[in-house]
C-alpha cells in the first residue's frame, strides 16, 4: 500500500497543527460557530445529536493492520469503545470531544491516517471497488490512480470552497462494484479497440433529494490526462455550480440543467489549455504509484486446495459460510473473504475495539496484514490462502463475525439515523435490527436470493436507499416516524433508481410491509434463480402495490 514520504508526513502534521489552532480560536471565541463550522467539517468533525462525530478517511478503503489497531485504540481512549464503517469507506466515531480531536488527529498521523476533507464543500475521499488488485475480471488495479487523485485533491486551493461536496469513485473493470453511477465523477478503467487502457469518465450521479444516474462525458480518456481532465470538470463546477440553493448545488444539477453536451463542451474547452501542462502524468509517475500496490508475495499454489474440499464436505456450517462469504481471486489457491458487519447484534457497520484488534491480528495471520472496507459497510480480507479458510472461519465465528449474509436481505446498508444524526427525520438502526431478527433463518434468507436493502433515516440518503433493490426512507410526520418503501433500485452496471410504492408505514408496520413485498416475489418468481430485482423489472410495481395497500 502507499507509504508516506516526508512530504506526506509533513502535510498531515501541519494540518493537525492548523486545526489545533482553529479549535483554540473557536474555544476562545475568536471564531464564531458559523466561521468555525466549515473548518471543522474539512477535518471531519460534525456536531450531531448527542455529541460530535469524527469521520476518519480510509483512502480507497485500504487499511494496514497497525492502522486498524490505532483505530481500536482511539475507540477505547477517546470514544465509547467502538467505531462505525460508512458507505464511503470511512470510519466514524460518535462521541469524541472537540477539545480532544487535535490529539486524535495527532495519533492518526502517527500511522499515516487523517480526517482531511471527509466533510465540507470540497473533494471527499476517493473510493475504489473493494476487490481492487484481486478481482478476476479486473482490467487494471484502480488504487494507484486513487492515490494520485487523493494527493491531487488534498488541499487543492482552487477547489476547497466548492458549491457543495464532491465525490469521486474509481472502478478497475467492467463490473461496477464502486457505485460509479451515483458519484459526482465515476471513473471506470476500460480498454479501447487499440488495446490501450484508459478511463471512461462519468459525471453527475448522486442520490439525496434528486437522485440521478451519472452520464458519460468521455468514453475514453488516456491515463496521462487523468488529473488535467478532472481539474477541468472541477473548474467548470466551481465556477458555474449553483450557490443560491443548497439543494441544487451538486454537479448533477449543473449537468441536468445544461445538458451533458454543453458541460462536455465547457470542460473540454478548459482541458484543451491544460492537458499537456503541469498535470500531465508521465509513464514514470504512474509506474511510481503502481509500485506501491505491487502484489504481495503470493505462494505458488494449486488452483483448488484439496484440504479445503474435504473440509467443505465434512462441515456444513463452514460450507454455508464458504458459499456466501468467499470470493474468487485472480491468483490460484487464494480467495477474498467478506467479513459481514451485519450480525444483527449491533448496528450495521459497527465494530468494537476488541473486534478491531482481533481483525488486525487475523489480517496479519491470514491476509498479508491488510484489511479493506467496502461500500456495504463490511470488511474484506483480500488475499487468504484457500488452505487457511477453515481456520479463519473458526476464528471469525468466535468473534461473532461469521454471519454468512453477504449480498442477501440482511446485509443491510443503514445510516446511523435519528439515534445519532442531527439531520435525521427517523431512526434507521432499529428497523435494520428488526429485519435482521425476522430473517435470521438462513434457509429462508438464501431462498430469497440476492437482495440489497438500504435504509436511510432522511432524504439525504446516506444509505443510498434509492439504490437498493428494496429501499426504506424514514421521514417525519408531525413529530413521529414514518417509513416510505421503494422498490427496484440498483447500484451495479444496470443502475436504476428505486420507486416509492405509495403511502408510508408506521414503525411497527414497515417490517410487515417488507414481508409482504417478499411474499409477492416468492409467489411470482419463475424459479428460485430469478432474483427479486428481475421479478420487479418483469412485473413492475403493480402486484407489490396491490399486496401492500389492498
Amino acid at each position, binding site marked *: 500500500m502507499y507509504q508516506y514520504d516526508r512530504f506526506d508526513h509533513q502535510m498531515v502534521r501541519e494540518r493537525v497543527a492548523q486545526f489545533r489552532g482553529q479549535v483554540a480560536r473557536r474555544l476562545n*471565541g475568536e471564531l464564531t460557530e458559523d466561521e468555525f463550522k466549515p473548518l471543522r467539517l474539512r477535518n471531519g468533525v460534525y456536531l450531531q445529536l448527542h455529541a460530535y462525530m469524527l469521520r476518519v478517511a480510509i483512502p480507497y478503503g485500504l487499511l494496514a493492520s497497525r492502522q486498524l489497531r490505532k483505530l481500536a485504540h482511539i475507540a477505547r*481512549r477517546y470514544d*465509547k*469503545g467502538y467505531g462505525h464503517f460508512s458507505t464511503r469507506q470511512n470510519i466514524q466515531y460518535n462521541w469524541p470531544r472537540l477539545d480532544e480531536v487535535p490529539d486524535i488527529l495527532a495519533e492518526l498521523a502517527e500511522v499515516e491516517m487523517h480526517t482531511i476533507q471527509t466533510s465540507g464543500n470540497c473533494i471527499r475521499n476517493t473510493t475504489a471497488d473493494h476487490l481492487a488488485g484481486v478481482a478476476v475480471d479486473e482490467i487494471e488495479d484502480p488504487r494507484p490512480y486513487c492515490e494520485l487523485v487523493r494527493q491531487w485533491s488534498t488541499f487543492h486551493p482552487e477547489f476547497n470552497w466548492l458549491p457543495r461536496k464532491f465525490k469521486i469513485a474509481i472502478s478497475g473493470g467492467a463490473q461496477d462494484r464502486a457505485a460509479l453511477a451515483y458519484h459526482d465523477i465515476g471513473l471506470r478503467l476500460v480498454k479501447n479497440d487499440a488495446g490501450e487502457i484508459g478511463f471512461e469518465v462519468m459525471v453527475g450521479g448522486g442520490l439525496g433529494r434528486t437522485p440521478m444516474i451519472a452520464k458519460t462525458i468521455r468514453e475514453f480518456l488516456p491515463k496521462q490526462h487523468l488529473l488535467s481532465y478532472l481539474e477541468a470538470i472541477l473548474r467548470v463546477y466551481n465556477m458555474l455550480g449553483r450557490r443560491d440553493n443548497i439543494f441544487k448545488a451538486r454537479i448533477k444539477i449543473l449537468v441536468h440543467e445544461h445538458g451533458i453536451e454543453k458541460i462536455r463542451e465547457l470542460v473540454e474547452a478548459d482541458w484543451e489549455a491544460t492537458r499537456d501542462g503541469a498535470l500531465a502524468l508521465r509513464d514514470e509517475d504512474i509506474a511510481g504509484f503502481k509500485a506501491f500496490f505491487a502484489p504481495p508475495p503470493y505462494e505458488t499454489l494449486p488452483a483448488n486446495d484439496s484440504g479445503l474440499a474435504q473440509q467443505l464436505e465434512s462441515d456444513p456450517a463452514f460450507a454455508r459460510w464458504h458459499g456466501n462469504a468467499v470470493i474468487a481471486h485472480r491468483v490460484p489457491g487464494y480467495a477474498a473473504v467478506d467479513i459481514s458487519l451485519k450480525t444483527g447484534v449491533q448496528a450495521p457497520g459497527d465494530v468494537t475495539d476488541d473486534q478491531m484488534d482481533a481483525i488486525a491480528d487475523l489480517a496479519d495471520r491470514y491476509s498479508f496484514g491488510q484489511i479493506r472496507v467496502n461500500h456495504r459497510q463490511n470488511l474484506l480480507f483480500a488475499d487468504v490462502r484457500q488452505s487457511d479458510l477453515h481456520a479463519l472461519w473458526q476464528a471469525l465465528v468466535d468473534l461473532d463475525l461469521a454471519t454468512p449474509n453477504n449480498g442477501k436481505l440482511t446485509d443491510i446498508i443503514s445510516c446511523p439515523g*435519528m439515534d445519532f444524526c442531527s439531520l435525521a427525520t427517523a431512526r434507521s438502526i432499529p428497523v435494520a435490527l428488526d429485519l435482521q431478527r425476522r430473517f435470521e433463518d438462513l434457509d429462508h434468507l438464501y431462498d430469497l436470493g440476492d437482495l440489497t436493502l438500504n435504509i436511510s433515516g432522511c432524504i439525504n440518503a446516506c444509505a443510498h436507499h434509492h439504490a437498493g433493490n428494496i429501499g426504506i426512507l424514514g421521514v*417525519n410526520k408531525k413529530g413521529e416516524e414514518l417509513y416510505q418503501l421503494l422498490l427496484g433500485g440498483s447500484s451495479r452496471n444496470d443502475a436504476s433508481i428505486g420507486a416509492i410504492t405509495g403511502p408510508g408505514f408506521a414503525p411497527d408496520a414497515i417490517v410487515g410491509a417488507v414481508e409482504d413485498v417478499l411474499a409477492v416475489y416468492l409467489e411470482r418468481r419463475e424459479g428460485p434463480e430469478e432474483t427479486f430485482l428481475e421479478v420487479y423489472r418483469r412485473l413492475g410495481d403493480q402486484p407489490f402495490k396491490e399486496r401492500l395497500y389492498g
Partner: protein
Amino acid sequence: MAHRVITGSLLREGTIAYLRVENGCRRWIATLGEATHVADKDAAETLLAEAIADVEANLIVAPYVADIRVEDRAVDGITMRERIRAAGPTIPLPSGDRRRGARGDEERRAA
C-alpha cells in the same frame, strides 16, 4: 401539558445540555428532568435570549426552545427527536457504555 425548555450542545464536549436557572444563576445540565421548564412561549423566548450570553461565552452551541410534555412531574420530549436527545440512542451501544459511562450529569456553570 406542554412546556418548553432551552437546550443545545456543549461546545467542548458536544453533548446535550439543558438550561437550568436557579437563584438567577444559569447552569447547563445533562438531564432533562432537572431543566428549567416554562409553560409560556414568551417566557421561553426570554430564557433563550438569556442563553445567548452563553453562546457568546463559548459554552453552548445553537440553543433553541424545545417543546416538552410534563405529566405527573415526569418530563419528556414531544417529538421522537427530543425523546432520543433526552434518553440517548434507542439501541444498545456495541460494547456497552464504557469510558464516558452513561450520559451522567456533566454540569457546567454559566459564565
